[in-house]
């Protein structure tokens, strides 16, 4: 529709009516953007034939502005609603990805043998501590029989570090005790 040859409030009113009807059937984004632009163009182009039509033209402009904005707000509402509707499905996907990530990190840790190395390192620390206690007891001339008994128990403990041995076996490393 061309605005070039329109004259007087009646012709402008007819043009607006046609545009509003078109806006009601606009469904795609492109159609809505297009009709909104033309309604805004209507506002800049509409002219009263004389001052007596000024109020009527102002009223038409006001209507054109309202419809121009309403059609775009309808588009926004529809799109926001569509985005909102995906939230639940995305929340489920979030859990799926998080669970897989957690399992992968545990697998990576296992492949890096981190738990095994930590167990071996811990066992080494324990043995070092027990050896130190045993050494202190042996060096103490005043150690009681009961304390010397502890030293024997430590010896037994050192010879049965099954955790460490099992850990080494897992590696396929044979150890002669």
């Amino acid at each position, binding site marked *: 529709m061309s605005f070039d040859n329109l004259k007087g409030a009646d012709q402008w009113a007819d043009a607006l009516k046609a545009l509003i009807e078109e806006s009601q059937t606009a469904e795609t*984004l492109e159609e*809505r*953007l297009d009709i*909104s*632009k033309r309604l805004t163009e209507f506002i*800049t182009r*509409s002219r009263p034939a004389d001052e007596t039509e000024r109020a009527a033209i102002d009223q038409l*402009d006001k209507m054109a*502005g*309202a419809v*121009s*904005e*309403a059609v*775009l*707000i309808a*588009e*926004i509402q529809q*799109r*926001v609603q*569509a*985005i*909102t509707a*995906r*939230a639940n*499905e*995305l*929340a489920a*996907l*979030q859990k*799926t*990805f*998080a669970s*897989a*990530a957690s*399992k*992968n*990190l545990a*697998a*990576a840790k*296992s*492949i*890096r*043998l981190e738990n095994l*190395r930590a167990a*071996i*390192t811990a*066992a080494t620390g324990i*043995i*070092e501590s027990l*050896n130190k206690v045993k050494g202190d007891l042996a060096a103490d001339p005043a150690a009681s029989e009961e304390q010397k008994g502890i030293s024997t128990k430590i010896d037994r403990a050192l010879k049965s570090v099954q955790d*460490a041995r099992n850990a*080494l*076996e*897992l*590696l*396929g*490393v*044979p*150890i002669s*005790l």
Partner: protein
Amino acid sequence: MIHFASRRPLGNVSRTTINGPSRPSIAAVGPRLATILLCSAAGCAVLPDVKPFAEASAQLAVSIRSVGKTAVLQMRQVSDVALPQNRKLISDEAGKLEAAWSAHVAAMNAAADYARSVQEVAEAGNAGAESARRVADAALKLAETANFAVGQTGAIVGEAFVAIYKQVARARARARLIECMNDLQPAVESIMNLMAQSLEDLRAIVLAAAQIHLNALTRGVGDELGFRLSLVAARDRFYEKGWDNLDDAQKAELATVEKAIAETDKWHAPYDEQMRGVMAERNATVEAISAAAQGMRDWGAMHVELIDAIEQGSGIDTGELLILIEEIGDLVERMRESRAPLPPAPTPNG
């Protein structure tokens, strides 16, 4: 078109092969080594470089967050210039979009964490020798501390363990990646499709919101703009005729028209600047959204390619994805820069 990689059993390395019998000996190491050395070419090959995939995922998560945040800001900006009866409505829609988009950001962050975890597994698989050596060193130290008699045999066995575990680690990582990535492929495809739809919706929102802004600016100078347009049309008609074809009266009229146009420049120049600013912001955001959508498609395709590469023991070309990552980063930056605050809307009366 994305295709699903076939799901295969966990390769040639069985759980028994990985963990071994309960009490191995030096004699048992030989057959085990043989078993592992006989693994398929895929099982023994270095795992592909997964880092670009993980980096692309992280960059996509950032761009998804940025485009959503920008769209919400633009809507809030628009709610200030819209018709008074629509301001609250638009502001409410911005709030709804912000809440809904946070679910998109959270899902994409989780996908990025998943991609990073895939990288962790691949790197652990490729670093089997280092992992084994650290364990062997710890084991030898333990043996020394506990006075176990390991001697030279222990050291030799330690070296054998390192050599064997290098292959075992790759096989374990490969098995884990094939299982996990095949399982996750439907989720990757789902998030790719959902994001594509939402990014298209976001693009429409940005275009609609920008148009409301442009319309508001135009309404603000409506009558004056109409007057200026009629002056410009009149001037153009004179120009079309050509100066030499104008009589003196027409030349005088053209001078008057040009003077009148110049008079309108005082409000038209800032109006024009405002319009250009809104359009530049809109274009930068739309471009960033399009790049993010393309990035999602490429990301999903690369997930499939990675599964194939891991299953077949081949490499993967990540060059294009790396270029795209850089482009998306640039576009997001440009989009942020285009959000410079605009001057107040001009009015014909100054």
